[in-house]
């Protein structure tokens, strides 16, 4: 027994001594709620926030640790600058632009403010690395006006309508557009719908002027906006009328919005629920700590297209975010085809907003920082180094697990944007869509 006691004692010492063989956990700071009082603190917080909450680390080619080594000394040096040699606007902007350069997330936008520096004692940097990608040389509103001018000439007289559920909305968004275009044969019609954003459900819900804003009628009103006052039957009739042999859904210039619009508006084009792709969120501090993939299903509402008809979605690089999801959905339908050019490539789902940016602390990923500052600008009397990083909360892939972030959705039939042709009165993308429905290919 004496021997056993000795042995047991020795083993106990061994056991206790091994406890220190492990690495200590790191001290983590919540990047969503940190008050920064220096350049370095702001940099460290922003770097950590991206390190922990950015959802594309398994796809991104940027070496984030290398960026830390490179830019930490830059921000440290900013703090060390004497009062008579403050950091300039361009230095500050260059530092953050360099930090974020080349990151994959096409939603990514950072806004940073320093309480010191010049001009006027404070400088600010906005960075959007994705915007350095492919873009059209003209503005979206100019493109839209050219396209709508051409559309009006193609519309059957008296059918062109500008839906304006937004005319009395607090947001200055254009609305949706509708017209009927002649089909191939006498009496055949093509129904054309254009949505320039996906805030439709939100605005209906917001407006007390519209009764039953969240009832089953609301989706129908939204989708068939131009004729919502004619009721469900008449509105749905445009798409379900036997004379209508095909639909064109134009999402060019659609900057996205809320996924709440997908089910009532785009989901109603399908015959059943449609799988658009898969999403996942971060689930821990590690860059590669992810949740399981979850299916993104867009439900088919009870009132939907009553039979399969050719549906063409028109989209291009000005189609962003939710508009890209809608494009993916229509493209995945057996009767759907995508004509145009690649979309922008910002498909990661994103939750942002609220005074405390609550979404970050629900999902521990995506947007972080001071949303009030992002939305309303800096407080010039504060000595806080404000920041807000607007980035995807969800990593999204298409239904075949292909990554579309930064790549965009690719068209089935590519017709490139052509400004000269538009200015000459030809919308080649729309013409190809009409031809597709008339000819069948």
């Amino acid at each position, binding site marked *: 027994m004496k021997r056993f006691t000795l042995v047991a004692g020795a083993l106990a010492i*061994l056991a206790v001594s091994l406890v220190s063989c492990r690495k200590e956990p790191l001290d983590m700071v919540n990047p969503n709620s940190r008050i920064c009082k220096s350049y370095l603190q702001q940099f460290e917080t922003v770097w950590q926030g991206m*390190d922990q909450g950015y959802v594309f680390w398994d796809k991104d080619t940027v070496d984030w640790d290398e960026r830390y080594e490179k830019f930490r000394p830059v921000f440290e040096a900013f703090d060390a600058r004497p009062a008579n040699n403050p950091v300039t606007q361009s230095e500050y902007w260059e530092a953050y632009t360099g930090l974020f350069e080349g990151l994959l997330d096409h939603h990514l936008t950072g806004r940073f403010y320093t309480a010191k520096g010049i001009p006027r004692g404070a400088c600010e940097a906005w960075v959007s690395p994705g915007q350095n990608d492919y873009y059209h040389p003209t503005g979206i509103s100019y493109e839209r006006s050219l396209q709508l001018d051409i559309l009006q000439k193609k519309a059957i007289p008296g059918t062109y309508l500008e839906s304006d559920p937004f005319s009395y909305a607090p947001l200055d968004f254009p609305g949706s557009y509708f017209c009927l275009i002649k089909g191939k044969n006498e009496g055949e019609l093509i129904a054309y719908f254009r949505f320039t954003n996906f805030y439709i459900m939100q605005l209906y819900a917001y407006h007390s002027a519209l009764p039953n804003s969240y009832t089953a009628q609301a989706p129908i009103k939204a989708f068939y906006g131009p004729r919502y006052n004619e009721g469900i039957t008449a509105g749905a009739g445009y798409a379900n009328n036997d004379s209508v042999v095909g639909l064109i859904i134009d999402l060019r210039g659609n900057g996205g919005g809320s996924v709440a619009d997908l089910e009532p508006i785009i989901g109603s084009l399908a015959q059943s629920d449609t799988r658009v792709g898969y999403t996942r969120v971060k689930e821990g*501090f590690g860059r590669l700590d992810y949740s399981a993939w979850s299916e993104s299903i867009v439900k088919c509402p009870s009132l939907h297209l009553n039979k399969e008809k050719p549906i063409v979605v028109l989209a291009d690089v000005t189609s962003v975010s939710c508009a890209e999801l809608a494009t993916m959905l229509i493209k995945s339908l057996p009767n759907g085809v995508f004509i145009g050019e690649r979309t922008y490539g910002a498909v990661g789902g994103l939750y942002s907003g609220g005074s405390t940016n609550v979404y970050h602390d629900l999902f521990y990923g995506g947007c972080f920082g001071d949303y009030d500052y992002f939305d309303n600008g800096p407080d010039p009397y504060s000595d806080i180094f404000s920041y807000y990083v607007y980035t995807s909360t969800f990593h*999204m892939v298409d239904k075949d697990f292909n990554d579309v972030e930064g790549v965009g959705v690719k068209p089935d039939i590519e017709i490139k944007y052509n400004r000269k042709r538009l200015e000459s009165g030809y919308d080649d993308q729309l013409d190809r869509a009409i031809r597709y429905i008339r000819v069948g290919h």
Partner: protein
Amino acid sequence: MNKIKQCLSAIPIVRAVILCVLIAATTTVAAQEDGDSAAAPRTRHFSVGIMAGLDRNYHIVNMSYMADMKYDKFRTGTAFGIRLGYSPWKWLSFNLGAVLLQKNYHMDHVFQYYRLYYSLPTTTTNEYINVPLEMKLSVGRTVKIHAFGGIYGGYWLKSHRKGVTYSFSNDREYTFDDDVEFNDKRDNRIDKGFTWGAGLSGKIKDRVEVGAEVRWYYGVDDIQKPYMRNLNPRYNTTITFQAVVAYWL
């Protein structure tokens, strides 16, 4: 600088080896003091055994401000394996085993979003093979009491997770039940550490011995590779409760 780091990282191993030598020396002296019967060579030196039972894994991870993600302290799994023993004396033996065991953990992500309450649990089942090499010391005649300690190496064979996650475009919960594909950049599939424990056994036939033991597997390897600068370590400590049947050759 690197040499210093290497020396420092080797300290736990050096310490373990020194302690093992001390244990051996102490027990040898103790055995000699204990008289002739315990230190006497035994007639049968080799044994084979099988082990089966349950385990409880403690997954150590620091969630810091991610307070809504809660890991269970312990998660139950199964453990079974074989063991070869060499016993130069009745009081001392050396064992080499191969054990298939589970190092499972469970995380529940609970939050409220608008008026909806979400509970998103994930149970991760991890299959490992561990190969312990240990020294075992025994006292007693009819019923023996054992204490043992040593090292183990292992390999992470398989990972599977089941649970509920949040579906973005649906604002709904989504149930999953998938094998986890190992990520070469992230997952450290090599497992090593220390093992120790205690048990009881008794002979039921001339060559057959049955017993029960409780054993700790204390992993010293982070289950993640050092793929990022600010890596928060994750470790497994597993306790097995096993029945053992040994046959003396």
